[in-house]
């Protein structure tokens, strides 16, 4: 008896040690700290470890990149050890368990609640087949990475806003301890399904060994079948919801698509593919990538570009290297500079040069020599003319344009027809964040 107790204590200690080591490793990997730390491209590792992200991404973009290899260890862990990831590696789970252990009340009111996790997983997978994985952003590793990335220096409130997913989970944990892990987490659900698959395989092998053995006629069979039937119906509905949701999300973008990082997936996919880990915003040296707090619902908090203070530098393609889900394609510098973010467009009514002032800020700053002075229309109102074949929407012109409040030179998304209905579509969450 005592020996068993001792063994239990020892195994618990060992587990705790493993979990905290994994946690420390995750923080070390994802911390956006100093330049002496791991190289910035290491940021991609943390969210890319998740098999859930790898699956959603591979189904959506219909290709398996080298990043998928990163998800293999956790896949194997979940396959071979029951709840291996949750019990040993998950940093979010560790934080939640620690939080709960600090509290005296550990009642689980939610115990009768259905498991949403598998439904989320299935809906995401079926949505992914349509190119829009619905709940990829619920991946705990991505949420954890986003929280770490919020602490890039200098700290900006908008970056912190992008990392609030984890604190939200912890608040859920305060009120419903264990609910997230046991019922909602799609990664955890996937892991449990994997384990069931493992068991099934084992049972099949065993079943083949003892053909029609006594295990097949079990007493609890009828209720088990009911449960199974209910569950499979639920899963079927989830799969359908995933398809419908993906279709709705893909259709739900208006004329005011925001500017996305270079190499971003098409707007109809982007909101689903992006896991909101904040890696791209973290590594951007210009600090022009922000979570889109005013964005439309299906792409809410996905990265958007803001050229108010800086532009997408011609010597940088870091965001292309750190996206774990393929929402931003892995592009070389040459490929990135050819990728069109948007196109610069001039408002001749406010342009200082057109008003006769000595301003040629945009002409001077354009790294691609895409802006020239056009004297032909009216020599008294010369204006910068953008060569659309050269412009890739890097925003250098917009960032230096001196007119206020609106810049005369602005980068507009390519697919937008007119510049008039700017930012009306995406006011869904925007009012809450901005005007508050």
């Amino acid at each position, binding site marked *: 008896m005592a020996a068993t107790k001792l063994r239990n204590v020892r195994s618990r200690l060992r587990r705790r040690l493993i979990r905290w080591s994994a946690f420390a490793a995750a923080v070390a990997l994802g911390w956006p700290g100093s330049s002496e730390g791991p190289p910035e491209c290491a940021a991609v590792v943390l969210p890319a470890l998740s098999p859930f992200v790898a699956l959603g991404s591979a189904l959506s973009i219909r290709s398996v990149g080298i990043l998928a290899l990163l998800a293999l260890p956790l896949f194997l862990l979940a396959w071979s050890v029951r709840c291996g990831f949750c019990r040993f590696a998950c940093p979010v789970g560790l934080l939640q368990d620690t939080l709960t252990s600090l509290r005296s009340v550990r009642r689980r009111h939610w115990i009768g609640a259905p498991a949403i996790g598998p439904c989320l997983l299935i809906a995401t997978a079926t949505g992914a087949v349509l190119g829009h994985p619905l709940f990829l952003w619920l991946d705990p590793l991505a949420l954890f990475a986003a929280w770490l990335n919020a602490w890039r220096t200098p700290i900006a409130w908008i970056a912190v806003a992008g990392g609030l997913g984890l604190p939200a989970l912890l608040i859920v944990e305060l009120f419903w301890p264990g609910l997230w892990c046991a019922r909602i987490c799609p990664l955890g659900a996937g892991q449990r399904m994997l384990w069931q698959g493992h068991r099934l395989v084992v049972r099949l092998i065993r079943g083949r060994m003892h053909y029609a053995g006594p295990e097949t006629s079990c007493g609890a069979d009828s209720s088990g079948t009911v449960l199974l039937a209910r569950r499979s119906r639920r899963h079927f509905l989830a799969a359908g919801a995933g398809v419908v949701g993906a279709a709705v999300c893909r259709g739900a973008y208006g004329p005011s698509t925001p500017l996305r990082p270079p190499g971003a997936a098409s707007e109809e996919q982007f909101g689903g593919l992006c896991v909101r880990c904040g890696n791209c915003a973290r590594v951007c040296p210009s600090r022009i990538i922000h979570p889109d707090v005013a964005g439309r619902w299906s792409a809410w908090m996905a990265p958007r570009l803001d050229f108010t203070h800086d532009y997408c530098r011609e010597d940088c393609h870091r965001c292309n290297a750190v996206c774990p889900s393929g929402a931003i394609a892995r592009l070389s510098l040459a490929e990135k500079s050819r990728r069109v973010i948007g196109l610069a467009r001039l408002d001749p009514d406010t342009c200082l040069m057109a008003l006769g*002032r000595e301003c*040629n*800020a945009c002409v*001077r700053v354009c790294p691609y020599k895409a802006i020239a*002075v056009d*004297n032909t229309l009216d*020599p*008294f109102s*010369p204006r910068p003319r953008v060569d659309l074949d050269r412009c890739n929407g890097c925003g250098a012109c917009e960032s230096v*344009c001196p007119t206020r409040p609106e810049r005369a030179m602005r980068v507009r998304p390519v697919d937008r027809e007119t510049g008039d209905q700017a930012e009306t579509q995406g006011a869904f969450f925007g009012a809450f964040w901005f005007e508050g």
Partner: protein
Amino acid sequence: MKATLTRRRLLKLLTAAGLGAPFATRVVADEADASIQSAPSPENIVVPVSPRDRYPAVLSRGRVIQPRRPLAVMHETDVLVVGGGPAGFAAAVAAARAGSKTALIERYGYLGGLWTGGLVLLVYPTHATEKGVRTKVVRGVGDELLERIARYPDAATNHAAGKPDPTTDPEITKLVMDQMVREADVTMIFHCWVADVVMDGNAVRGVVIESKAGRQAILSKVVVDASGDGDVFAAGGAEHEQRLHAVGLVHRLGNADRADLDALRAAGFKNLGEIEPQPSVRWINLRGPSTDGLDIAELSRLEIEHRRSIWQRMERIRQSSGGDKVFLLQTAPQIGVRITRLLAATRQLTEAEARSGVRPADTIAVGGTYGPGADNPGFAIPYGALVPKKLDNLIAAGRCIGVDTPMVEDMRLIATCLLTGHAAGVAAALAVEEGCRPRDVDILRLRQILLHQGAFLG
């Protein structure tokens, strides 16, 4: 002996030009005394033709050959400033105040260059954001000039404590520049072009000028090239680059206060210019096409083309509702060349260095910031940017100093030209005083004198 000769020649020249002898004496010998009234003299009188050295070029086997010829030395001085624009004006006043015998030559008949003659009336950037505070960087000679202009009624807008970038009246600007040059005891010589340099080995010892009086030489110990186009250093063989930029022509709208500007804007006249101290006048910038500002054929074409398009537009304005009262007051006497030659200096000022906020030990001026960069601190202009790589006895000032392409847009502005001119003038005076080459001037003393003269060095 030499000086007597010079004066006699000058007297001759000015007599020949039809000016009365007492007046000529006053101006040339700089013995001005307002109490002396010139005696009434008959007009249109016959005087003997003044003899003039003749060395005409000859055609020799199809080539035009100019014969070897001696040049009369019209004037001899310590510091000769070429060009009377903002930079040349500041250089001449600063050099004279620093104790040097100074002469200033100018191709037109007034000071101010493109400010007054080009009618670019907005003086900017006069301020920069130093340590978070909008600070005046145009101090010393330039600031004194602006202050004195502003004392006249209706002479400057936007000129008050803490206010950046005034617009001044061109006539009062000319007037005050004249006053300051005279008070500083600068010998002012208008109406002559620099045709060449006088070289002594690798050093410039003066310039050859061309005027109605023919070709003459002016000798000096140091030359400040404030010609804007680097005419002197180019003639001296200094290494330089050249840029093309827009060449335009400013014009002025009269009766602007009796026009309905909003109606005109609505009618499609977007550019109705900038305000002037006189509310009835506005100056309108015409940017013009990018071209070579040294090509006189091109400049001639543009003068005609610009005046034509200005008049055309003026007619359309007058036919539009709200514009019937306005009239074309003036087109600028001087076409607006923005940049041509750039000196290859001992220390080329690059944009990266300028924006870095570093203030090197040889900072001789801090340039102002404006527009989108108004919140930035001023940029340091090092002395080395004014000094040619090899050519001696010459200091550049104004827009043609050694900077990279993006910095041109800062260096060519009036306020910045006032700064580099001020520094170049003091440096020239110091080189004369120390008897050294401009490149060997004691930077510490240069900065001391600049500070003493009120300059802002960060």
